[in-house]
């Protein structure tokens, strides 16, 4: 059961004295065994100094990132700082060292920014002046027109046609001069009378007007030459600045990376601590600890503080609290977790179905895709994907292995019957395959029923356990319909067994008012409950039949796979037969491989999960120094 049941959680409150706070939080973060909760008892308040400190580290990290980016370096990954983190003190050292680096770099940065801004301004100026080349008047004379309003500026490229539409009421001129990235340099003009409308339209399209550089003087060609000369000077300056950057980067990247790692780790601690409420000199660290880790946590915390730390441990009550779920899935099963987490995360009171889903998915897949050769191709594809670090690879490889196993049972490889089938050939024993598929489905549904009973028991949801369609009453009806029907049909059971059917139907029909009466819950009007109950009963009974029969597709796909593979083989004779064989095999493995995967997934999600699994849990995300740890555990759920 331990593989199925989430780890037992304990609500843990640590009362930590202010001087011990940093070392205790540091120890907890390194252990990764505490999922933090925001708990603020009356009279306790979070400490604003820690918010300030968290912001300070956030700011330091941003500055460090900015510096690394400016120098063209990436923060080098590496281990977290080994020494104890002291967020209240470390920022001073980080700040001082960063400031020293910034002082060294700032001069270079300022010169770079100035040069870049000048280059941009000159290029825009050149574009504008080029338009004026046909005119034989000094540029400065165009700045004071009496009957025209002319403006040049930048706007998002996508807004240019929009402005044209917005100006539908007036005559206007819009000339896009140049588009870079997603911004267009635009000249806009209208008569002075319509200047206000033009201005409103341009502004509402996020137009930013620009003015010509001061160098643009004289006739247009003279102005253009002056601008180009200036641009060449600045380009030389930019080249020198790039050499300077490379030199600075080689000298400073090591130190900046080390500072960045330390600031990030301290920032995470500060970010966690700022949520801890404080009363006097005591901080409350509240959260969930897996029961199996409690002693380890207690020892680590006491050892970090140098004396015993007051710790309150309470049992989790999942009906009252939202308890995070931690399922310690064995390593070999982890690649298959996504089969379940794609649908949802099991809540604390739910059994985790990963093991059962993995086994049943692989069996269903293999049954529909049974062929030694095709399975081998899928296995190799999966291993290749895995070697390329694609997570899905293991699942594909396992599905291929299952296909090979069933290939042995069917005696088939690449559509050829290469040996005596250990079980049967699907095309020869269609009824056996179909009935086996349905029987397998009945088994899986009953596992679902059983898991629902356990989940209901764990949640103490008695109506769900006893009276609902997937509870005891529903299971009894299912088996009376199925087992009773078959038993009476084959004269193994007396016909009076079937008298149970109306009794159980009636029970399911009135289950809601009955549950309300037994467990004294507020009830809906009787008439409405009975109408709703009737339709639910109808849905339940048809669901029992349709859910069970839905598994018949396993057999149908097994037959179809053999048929399709045989077809490929029958057309692969003659000179170009190998081409047909290769293309046909690719089609069968690629196309059918995907289809049967989806069908198996559908059976899991709809038929199987529908019996017991809600998937509304939230994952256990411990306080950690790893990226994302703290934010996730504070409710951002990154």
């Amino acid at each position, binding site marked *: 059961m331990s593989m199925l049941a989430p780890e037992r959680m304990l609500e843990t409150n640590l009362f930590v004295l202010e001087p011990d706070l940093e070392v205790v939080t540091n120890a907890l973060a390194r252990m990764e065994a505490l999922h933090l909760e925001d708990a603020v008892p009356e009279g306790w308040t979070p400490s604003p100094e820690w*918010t300030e400190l968290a*912001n300070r580290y*956030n700011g330091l990290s*941003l500055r460090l990132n900015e510096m690394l980016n400016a120098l063209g370096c990436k923060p080098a990954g590496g281990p977290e700082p080994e020494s104890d983190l002291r967020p209240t003190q470390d920022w001073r050292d980080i700040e001082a060292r960063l400031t020293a680096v910034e002082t060294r770099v700032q001069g270079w940065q300022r010169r770079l920014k100035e040069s870049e801004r000048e280059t941009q301004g000159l290029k825009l100026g050149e574009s504008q002046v080029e338009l004026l080349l046909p005119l034989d008047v000094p540029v400065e004379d165009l700045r004071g027109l009496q009957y025209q309003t002319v403006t040049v500026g930048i*706007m*998002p490229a*996508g*807004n240019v046609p*929009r*402005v044209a*539409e*917005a*100006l*539908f*009421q007036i005559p206007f001129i819009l000339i896009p001069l140049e588009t870079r990235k*997603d*911004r267009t340099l635009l000249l806009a003009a209208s008569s002075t009378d319509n200047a206000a*409308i033009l201005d*409103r*339209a341009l*502004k*509402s*399209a*996020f137009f*930013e007007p620009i003015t010509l550089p001061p160098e643009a003087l004289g006739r247009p060609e003279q102005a253009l030459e002056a601008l180009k000369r200036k641009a060449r000077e600045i380009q030389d300056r930019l080249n020198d600045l790039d050499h300077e950057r490379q030199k600075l980067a080689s000298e400073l990247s090591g130190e900046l990376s080390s500072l960045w790692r330390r600031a990030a780790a301290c920032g995470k601690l500060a*970010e966690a601590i700022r949520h801890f409420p404080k009363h006097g000199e005591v901080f409350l660290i509240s959260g969930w600890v897996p029961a199996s880790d409690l002693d380890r946590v207690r020892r680590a915390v006491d050892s970090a503080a140098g004396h015993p730390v007051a710790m309150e441990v309470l049992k989790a009550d999942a009906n009252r609290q*939202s308890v995070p779920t931690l399922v310690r899935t064995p390593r070999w099963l982890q690649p298959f977790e996504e089969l379940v987490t*794609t*649908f949802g995360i099991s809540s604390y009171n739910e059994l985790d179905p990963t093991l059962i889903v993995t086994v049943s998915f692989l069996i269903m897949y293999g049954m529909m895709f049974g062929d030694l050769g095709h399975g081998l191709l899928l296995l190799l594809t999966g291993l290749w994907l895995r070697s390329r670090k694609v997570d899905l690879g293991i699942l594909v490889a396992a599905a291929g292995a299952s296909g090979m196993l069933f290939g042995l049972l069917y005696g088939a490889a690449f559509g050829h019957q290469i040996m005596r089938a250990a079980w049967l050939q699907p095309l020869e024993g269609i009824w056996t395959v179909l009935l086996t598929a349905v029987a397998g489905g009945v088994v899986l549904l009953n596992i679902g029923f059983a898991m629902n009973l356990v989940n209901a028991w764990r949640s103490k949801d008695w109506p769900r356990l006893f009276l609902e369609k997937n509870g005891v009453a529903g299971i009894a009806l299912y088996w009376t319909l199925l087992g009773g029907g078959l038993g009476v049909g084959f004269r193994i059971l007396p016909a009076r067994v079937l008298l149970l059917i109306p009794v159980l139907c009636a029970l399911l029909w009135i289950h*809601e008012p009955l549950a309300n009466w037994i467990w004294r819950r*507020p009830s*809906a*009007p009787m008439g*409405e*409950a009975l109408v*709703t109950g009737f339709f639910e009963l109808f849905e339940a009974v048809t669901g029992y039949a349709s859910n069970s029969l839905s598994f018949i597709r396993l057999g149908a796909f097994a037959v179809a796979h053999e048929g399709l593979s045989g077809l490929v083989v029958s057309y692969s004779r003659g000179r170009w037969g190998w081409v047909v064989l290769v293309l046909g095999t690719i089609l069968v493995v690629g196309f059918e491989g*995907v*289809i049967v995967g*989806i*069908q198996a*997934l*559908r*059976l899991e*999600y*709809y038929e199987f*999960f*529908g019996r017991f699994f*809600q998937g*509304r849990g939230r994952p256990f995300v411990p306080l950690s120094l790893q990226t994302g740890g703290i*934010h996730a555990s*504070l*409710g*951002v*759920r*990154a």
Partner: protein
Amino acid sequence: MSLFFYAAAQGYIRARLSRLLDRATWSRLLEPNTPAELNQSLGRTAVDLRGEVADAGRTLVRFLPRGAGELVAWYNQRFEIENLKTVLRAVHYGLDPSRARASLIPLRGTRWHWELLAEAGSISGVIDQIRESPFARPLEHAMERYQQEQRLFYLEIAIDLFYFQELVRLIESQNGKDAADARRFLGRWIAVQNLLWAYRYRIYGRMTPEEIINYTLHRAFAAGLDTVRRVALGSPLAVEAGRLGFQVSPGLSEVEGLTEIEVLAERERFRFATAAVRRPLFQLRGVLAYLWLLEAEVRDLAVIREGKLTGLTGSEIGRRLVRAA
């Protein structure tokens, strides 16, 4: 081929449909109880519920063929936008970060630490930190105007326009039945939104025609540029709403008429979705219908909660619910 992609999605949806709240639960929620009791009985807050809708959308994207997947993924970006707007408001108005935190939708798989962003010192600081986001560029475009006038409107409209223009592009890039579904569901929704925007700018913002045109969508299916122009030049609400098939009750002011159309549009969405999930779900409409049903549920829960806060009775709240239609 798309049928096979949709098979897994429809398995997921069919399994999840049964988890929508049934009529009996709705009736119970309308019974006299306080908002706190309501939270207790639901076990989740309104933002948690919106987070669950976002999760459902995110999960479904993984089942869909590429084109439809891109569309639904982008449609789902509206939750990121809600969080981004919450952050921008918190920073602009200097709100207490805890208030902003309470309004942030918990999104699994988001790249941004919204809680931390809510504490950024300035709007440009927020934009710096979401530089990799698709919304950074539209925000940068609007920054100069924002800085000049200190009005959040320019940032919000820049994000909305970018989001909806991209959504229109993705709808228009769909093929086959997915294209028809996307137009019928999302295209219709976009048209209604565009019409409502245009009237809101005219009625509440008293904007000039050129501003109305610049702040609305030009390609918006049944309510594109031509409609916006007519609205900008003074076409009555009842006339333009009528073109989209909505009958505004006689005697209402334009403000009341707008509110009525908002509710009618929501009810129409619910009807579309309810009808769609009764049919086979092997198409895009099944996915969109399911997401709309979830959204309608969340919207109604919010209405119930707000109704109770303002002291409305169960029947008064019932009239404002989408499901009551």
